[in-house]
């Protein structure tokens, strides 16, 4: 569809309010033979029920669940069809109904959206949303070929069998069109690997320099290995509920808004179109941007991310994301896709995305001013630093947002017992990345698939 008609532009609206109250994660590792998949989900499920200050007994919380939504990217990886049934039984939730959701890299976000719809519609009062991925049954090159089956198998898969090679042409195009330097791209990797150092769940923490990133092994030019997300094994859970149950379960519920957009599987098929404007943009914003021969979204931007933000900001009453949001967790599968997203979700106008990094706004502490960054991004360590167990990812991001807004970052990242549980030692120089509290504190996360085929944006807002 090129021209959206009025009916297509209807803003999503819940039938009743939806809240998130608790979350649970696991460690994320390249290989994880210690646990079977369902055992990992159980571990995240227990953290969610037992460690989130819920005001009633964990088994009584379970006694309120009506429905479960499960997120898994690819049956190829699990080598087990109907994993959902196996997990659901393992968690002891039969005979309640459960449903599996699959939208590539955006699977976790789509599962949260599906769970929220069940609460909003009245189908359920309490919904478990859980996701996982086991990517260690095959070696890395085979794993990359499995993932490349999410490209078009007729026209694209055989041309690389590797997702970085579908993002790298976007990086080249973006660098040329919007004057993005290799150094700015590398700074995203430096930042996210660094923030992963504060997380007991992270797979790829590291204190790297820009030079380290640019000297690392090439995957598909210009993208280096240290600019790419990890293949992970792990799970994540989040508990959604209606307003009444939310306040019964916790003193710190967060109101949830979430919406999505989609666009072609093949980047190739994206025809030029007008830029849909976010609430803080006007036609003047882009008067100079589109020149003869250039295209929107072209290879520079993601229409699906723009539409997810377009719907979600209006649904949640966000007027200016940089001013209104206290944190964003973005789908940094690659440094370039992270940067592309800054424009899509309006942290900067299209064409000025690199400035979100260079200004220091994206940092916990702005390196230019030594003061808190205006709207920090990926304090979780993101996909580059912490994890991309694909089905779990969009839930992991939501949980990190939830704990940040609930002022529980330190509890879930700084407790030495959590580090020890996962066989790690809390670093001597561990630093808190807790965002400041304020009335109406809110965090957004973007869950993203393919080369932008499915994207959801979720917002969690302090509601106490």
């Amino acid at each position, binding site marked *: 569809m090129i021209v959206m008609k009025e009916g297509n532009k209807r803003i999503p609206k819940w039938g009743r309010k939806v809240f998130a109250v608790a979350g649970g994660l696991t460690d994320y590792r390249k290989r994880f033979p*210690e646990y079977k998949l369902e055992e990992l989900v159980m571990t995240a499920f227990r953290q969610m029920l037992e460690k989130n200050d819920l005001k009633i007994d964990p088994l009584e919380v379970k006694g309120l669940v009506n429905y479960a939504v499960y997120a898994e990217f690819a049956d190829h990886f699990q080598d087990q069809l109907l994993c959902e049934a196996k997990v659901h039984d393992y968690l002891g939730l039969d005979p309640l109904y459960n449903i599996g959701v699959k939208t590539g890299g955006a699977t976790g976000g789509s599962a949260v959206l599906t769970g929220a719809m069940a609460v909003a519609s009245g189908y359920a009062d309490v919904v478990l949303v859980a996701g996982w991925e086991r990517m260690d049954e095959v070696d890395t090159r*085979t794993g990359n070929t499995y*993932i490349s089956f999410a490209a*078009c198998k*007729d026209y694209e898969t055989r*041309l690389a069998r590797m997702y970085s*090679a579908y993002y790298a042409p976007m990086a080249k195009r973006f660098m040329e069109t919007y004057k993005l330097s290799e150094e700015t791209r590398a700074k995203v990797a430096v930042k996210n690997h660094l923030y992963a150092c504060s997380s007991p769940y992270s797979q790829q923490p590291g204190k790297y320099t820009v030079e380290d990133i640019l000297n690392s*092994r*090439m995957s598909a*030019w210009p993208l280096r290995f240290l600019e790419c997300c990890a293949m992970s094994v792990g799970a994540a859970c989040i508990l959604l509920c209606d307003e009444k149950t939310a306040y019964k379960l916790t003193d710190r519920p967060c109101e949830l808004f979430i919406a999505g957009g989609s666009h072609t599987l093949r980047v190739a098929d994206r025809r030029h179109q007008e830029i849909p404007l976010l609430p803080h943009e006007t036609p003047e914003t882009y008067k100079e941007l589109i020149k003869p021969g250039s295209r929107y979204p072209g290879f520079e931007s993601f229409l699906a991310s723009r539409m997810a933000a377009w719907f979600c900001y209006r649904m949640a009453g966000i007027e200016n994301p940089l001013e209104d949001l206290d944190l964003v967790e973005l789908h940094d599968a690659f440094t370039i896709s992270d940067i592309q997203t800054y424009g899509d979700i309006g942290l900067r106008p299209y064409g000025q995305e690199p400035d979100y990094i260079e200004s220091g706004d994206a940092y916990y502490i702005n390196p230019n001013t030594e003061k808190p960054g205006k709207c920090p991004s990926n304090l979780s360590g993101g996909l580059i630093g912490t994890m991309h167990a694909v089905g779990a990812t969009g839930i992991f991001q939501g949980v990190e947002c939830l704990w940040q807004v609930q002022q529980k970052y330190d509890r879930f990242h700084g407790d030495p017992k959590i580090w020890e549980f996962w066989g790690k030692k809390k670093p001597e120089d561990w630093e808190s990345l807790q965002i400041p509290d304020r009335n109406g504190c809110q965090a957004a996360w973007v869950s993203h698939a393919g080369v932008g085929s499915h994207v959801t944006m979720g917002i969690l807002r302090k509601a106490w």
Partner: protein
Amino acid sequence: MGNRKDEAQFIGQPAKVIQTEPAMVVEWPRTFLHRHTYGKLTPFFKGLQEGRLLATRCTNSKCSENRLWLPARADCPDCHQPMDWEEISHPVIGTIYTYTKVAYGGMGLEISEPYWQIDVELPGVCTIFKGWLRYGEPKIGMKVKAEFQKVPTNTILNIYWVPYEE
């Protein structure tokens, strides 16, 4: 009471144990054959075997777009009507829109690494066609010419591009 001479036998191979600590891990090798149809895209892939590049065009007079598509698709997404096949005339000359050098491809990759993967704009085509550059060094805006494998691969890899100078 059963008769043991008719008993069922284990006829597989023992699974290879590759580690026992901290948990037991076994290998489970297998090979599967898939039969993949090109469906209504068959003229496109037959064209590649014959050294011809075919696109599809919507010719429905009621369609607001009437675009030319490559990658070809059989049905128009704007008006939902079947489209017509249209050959891109020889020599097929395109312009590089963007590119990458693939240094680390996935398992089973059929092109020798490293190689240039290029995205090509073609006159009149509403989409951008992904392919590979056989030799030379790409630049955005550079002209390239389509060539075809002499021994057909029967896949998208049958078409490749080479630098073109007028």
